[in-house]
Structure formats: structure tokens, C-alpha cells
């Protein structure tokens, strides 16, 4: 819709009609403390009963409110449709810590999972950071990032406002004091999701499937365990985030199905980069980037043989997890605990 059309609508249509069509408009009136106006009237008539003083506190007059309302409609009319779909992301190589050149260039496509491996301090996080800021030769590595095979102009960088990349790291926590349902609802409404109820349920079910221990829709997000929080963050990123690139900096071994988790992200038409020391995650990826002394030294495609090892690795992983849980619960360990899969 054009700016003119929005203006026409704002002048002529009763507010309740506009709100029915664009529920987010209710926020516009809440932000200006205009919750007691008559929503059966069009905007300007509804404002007639409001004292100039009340709106001048916001630095506005009635004409300006009309203008801002139109801008609001225009901005959020757009949000709904600007899912930044991309097809590929290319890394143009820079150099390692002592200036030696790294790989020339390499492209990842939508739906791919790429793990990043290397010793601690080698530069795994630096690579994630370069992708996050869409490096343009302006970071310590001299790398450049291209999208869909093309350079990104500064203008486009500003326009994207960080929406290209979603991030997940061990340091991230929920800070809002909301229930899981309210939390997902809040995210859905900010995405202007049409079928919010349905998306919330799907996301919730997915999170519960990933997290070993179940939680409820009215559990507070701040009361979730580490594993449950990670599971919810991953499901939320898969189902609700608009960002086509997902960067994961180490998901801890928190009792969630890590292998399935990254698969879910990739299925949602995303490019997933995951920095990890975890063999299960590293080999679940389609490819892995090996970092050495700050630079990308190799890119390895996960072989059929490696994929074949995943089942055995998963068993080892489950054993370690079981032992950890036993210790945490103050139990003693025996050879039976090491071997036994059925025992708890």
C-alpha cells in the first residue's frame, strides 16, 4: 500500500476498523496514552475530545499525530513482508593472525549447517563476529562477506538493521518475567504473525521435544533449566525469527537433543553456523570450517564414514550425560552406571 492510501484510510476509516485489520495499531495509541478515545470514530474526530495539553507533552499536535499514525501504518505494513530471504553467503578470505593468507573464498547455501572447529583462542568467535557484522575488510581478519554472490553496500547494511543474523550463545538468558506462552505471544505479535496461536503451539511443542524434561506453557521463562532455555531459544529462532542466518557459539551439553536442534534450524531455510568442540555437533553439520591461528585453513565435507559414526557417538554422549546426571544427584558410580542404558 502507498503512503497516500494509508492517509486516506487514516482520515476516513473508523479506528476500530483499522485496528481490526492491523492489530498492532493499538500500540500506537497506548504509546501516546490515548486509550480512552472513541474508537468508533475516525482518528481526527476521535482526537477532538482530547485536550491539546495532553498530546503536547509528547511534543505533538493533532496534525502531527495524523502524520505519525500514517508513518506507523506504513512502517508496520512493511515489516510483515520484509523477511530478508537470501540464498547464499560467501566468505571472501582475509588473513590469519600472522598475516598468512587463508582460503580464497567459499560459499554456504540456505539449508546448510556449517560447524566451525579449532583450538580455543584460534579465532572461531572472530569468524562468527565477521559474519555478524557483514565484514567489509574492516575487521582484524580483513575478511569480506557477500550475500547472494554480491557485495553489500553500506546503505544496505544500515537498512538491514541487524535483521540478517540471529545469534545464540551460552551467555544469553531470558530477562523478561513472562510465561512461555506470553513470551512467545510477544515475539509473534512483534513479527505481526498472522496465525499467531498456531505458531506459538508449534514452537512450544518443538521446544519440549528438544528439551529432555518437559515444561508447560505457563512456566515462567526465567524458571526454565539451562537445557529448557536453550531448547526454547532454538525453537523460537526456528519458528519466529526472520533472520536467515543463525550463528551459534557453543551450545553446552545441557541435556537437549543438539543434533535435532540444528537440523530444525536448517530445515527452516536458514544457514546455520555453529562454533563447537562437540564431536556430535561438528559431525552433524554438512561441512566444517577448520580454524588455525586465526585463519580458515580447510573446509571439510562431512564424509559418509563420519556420518556413519554418529550413532556410536550419540551413545557415548548419552553415557556421559547419564554419568553427569548421576553425579549431580549425589549418586555413586559403578560399572553398571557406565554401561547400563536402562538404569537411571
Amino acid at each position: 500500500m502507498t503512503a497516500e492510501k494509508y492517509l486516506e484510510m487514516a482520515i476516513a476509516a473508523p479506528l476500530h476498523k483499522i485496528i481490526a485489520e492491523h492489530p498492532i495499531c493499538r500500540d500506537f495509541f497506548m504509546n501516546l496514552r490515548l486509550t480512552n478515545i472513541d474508537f468508533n470514530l475516525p482518528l481526527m474526530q476521535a482526537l477532538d475530545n482530547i485536550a491539546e495539553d495532553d498530546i503536547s507533552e509528547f511534543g505533538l499536535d493533532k496534525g502531527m499525530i495524523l502524520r505519525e499514525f500514517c508513518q506507523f501504518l506504513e512502517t508496520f505494513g512493511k515489516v510483515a513482508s520484509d523477511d530478508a530471504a537470501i540464498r547464499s553467503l560467501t566468505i571472501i578470505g582475509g588473513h590469519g593472525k600472522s598475516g598468512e593468507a587463508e582460503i580464497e573464498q567459499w560459499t554456504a547455501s540456505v539449508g546448510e549447517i556449517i560447524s566451525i572447529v579449532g583450538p580455543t583462542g584460534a579465532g572461531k568467535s572472530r569468524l562468527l563476529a565477521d559474519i555478524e557484522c557483514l565484514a567489509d575488510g574492516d575487521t582484524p581478519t580483513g575478511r569480506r562477506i557477500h550475500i547472494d554472490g554480491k557485495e553489500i553496500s553500506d546503505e544496505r547494511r544500515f537498512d538491514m538493521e541487524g535483521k540478517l543474523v540471529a545469534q545464540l550463545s551460552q551467555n544469553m538468558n531470558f530477562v523478561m518475567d513472562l510465561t512461555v506462552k506470553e513470551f512467545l505471544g510477544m515475539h509473534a505479535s512483534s513479527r505481526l504473525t498472522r496465525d499467531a496461536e498456531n505458531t506459538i503451539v508449534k514452537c512450544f511443542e518443538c521446544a519440549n521435544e528438544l528439551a529432555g524434561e518437559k515444561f508447560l506453557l505457563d512456566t515462567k521463562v526465567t524458571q526454565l533449566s539451562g537445557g529448557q532455555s536453550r531448547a526454547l531459544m532454538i525453537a523460537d529462532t526456528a519458528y519466529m525469527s526472520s533472520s536467515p542466518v543463525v550463528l551459534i557459539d557453543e551450545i553446552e551439553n545441557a541435556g537437549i537433543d543438539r543434533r535435532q536442534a540444528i537440523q530444525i534450524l536448517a530445515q527452516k531455510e536458514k544457514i546455520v553456523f555453529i562454533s563447537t568442540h562437540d564431536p556430535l555437533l561438528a559431525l552433524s553439520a554438512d561441512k566444517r570450517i577448520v580454524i588455525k591461528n586465526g585463519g580458515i585453513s580447510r573446509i571439510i565435507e562431512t564424509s559418509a564414514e563420519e556420518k556413519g559414526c554418529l550413532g556410536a557417538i550419540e551413545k557415548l554422549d548419552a553415557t556421559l550425560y547419564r554419568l553427569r546426571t548421576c553425579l549431580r544427584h549425589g549418586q555413586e558410580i559403578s560399572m553398571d552406571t557406565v554401561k547400563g542404558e536402562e538404569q537411571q
Partner: protein
Amino acid sequence: MKLITFAGPPSSGKTSVIIKLIEAMNVEVKEIGVVKFDCLTSFDNLRYEEVGVRVETGFSGKLCPDHFFVSNIEAAVEWGIKSGFKILVSESAGLCNRCSPYIQGILSVCVIDNLSGVNTPRKIGPMLKMADIVVVTKGDIVSQAEREVFAFNIKQVNTAARIIFVNGITGQGAPLLAKHLQGAREITGLRDMKLRFTTPAAVCSYCTGEMRIGAEYQMGTMKRMEFKSR
């Protein structure tokens, strides 16, 4: 010289972002000056001096910090020009949500942090609404969902703003901010320029030292709450 004004709630990361910005800008530290407007105390000067940046600090004390800003910013610009700076940055702590120390035609940046809660952008008022660029910090410690909702709520009150995410500790995002600020306009003074928004009306008896409570002590601009009986 270019002037860039930074504002934002206390502890939102203004000083951290400005320091990372200075590192990301292609200029020598001696060509940059900072003027810090604060209320009672500030230790920011030490942090700026540590990275070799010249800084002047002013305390509004018992005055309204916004009035204090307007009455001193012109002199700050003169100081900056005399000192040979290419860039002068002002940092002011928004102490009430009614503050907005921005000048028409002067690039203005509002710094707010993800930890302050997703609905905070909707409550900050002119300081956020009137800014050209909104810098969001502390994204490293909250969930992706909260970051997205936070940015969405910023757009609600300032549809025209450019949002840039900066990590005040690692400096991630600062180069992009630096690029954006290159467009700040050159000025030779501020005479006759105008604020973007009126400063809080503060001419009641309490502004001038009254301490007693009671209607008979209240004079000047007053606003009374209405308490409804059920």
C-alpha cells in the same frame, strides 16, 4: 568541526560505545574531544582520559540537566573549535524520560540497552523518539527473541530511526556506527540553532528551593494528579 550528541539512560553503555566508536573512527585521538554533562558525580572522565581523549565535565547540580545542557553546549562547541578538534562528542545521561538534548540539524544518537526490558523503548519518550540513530547495547546477554522485540518497540516510537546494535565491551558494531556518523555536518557554532523538543517546564517553587509540602507553598507551573473515588 562535527558535533555529535549522545544521550541515553544511566548505564545504558554511552561511554563504552563512544570509546569503541573513537577506536573505530579513522582519526587521531587528539582530534576528538568529549563533553560530558552529568548531574552530581561522574567518573567517565577517567575512562576517556585513559584512552587519551580530552574531556570536560559539567555538573548540573540543582538545575534541570536539560536546561544546563542547552545553556552550555554553545560554549562547548567554541571550546572544541579552539582546541582544534575535528569531532566533538557530547554525552548526557538522560535523567528523566522527558529529556532530549538534541539540536535540529545536529546528528543525535540515543543509546539504550536490552537489559532495560523490552517495553522500555515505549516509555522513554522524546530522548528516543527524536534521535536520528538508536544504538542498542547488551545484546550479548539476552535472547534473540528479546532483541527482536526490543528493536520492534523502538520502531514503534521512532519509525524513522536507524537502529544499530553495538557491543560496548567488544566494540562489535562500532565500525558500522562510525561509518554512519561520517555524515555528520560541519559546524562553526550553534548560535540560533534550535532544540528538537522543548525542555521540561521547570519553574515551580520547588525548582527554586522550596522544601515544604502543602498547597500554600506551591507556585508557578504545577500539574495535579486526579484521584478518582469509586
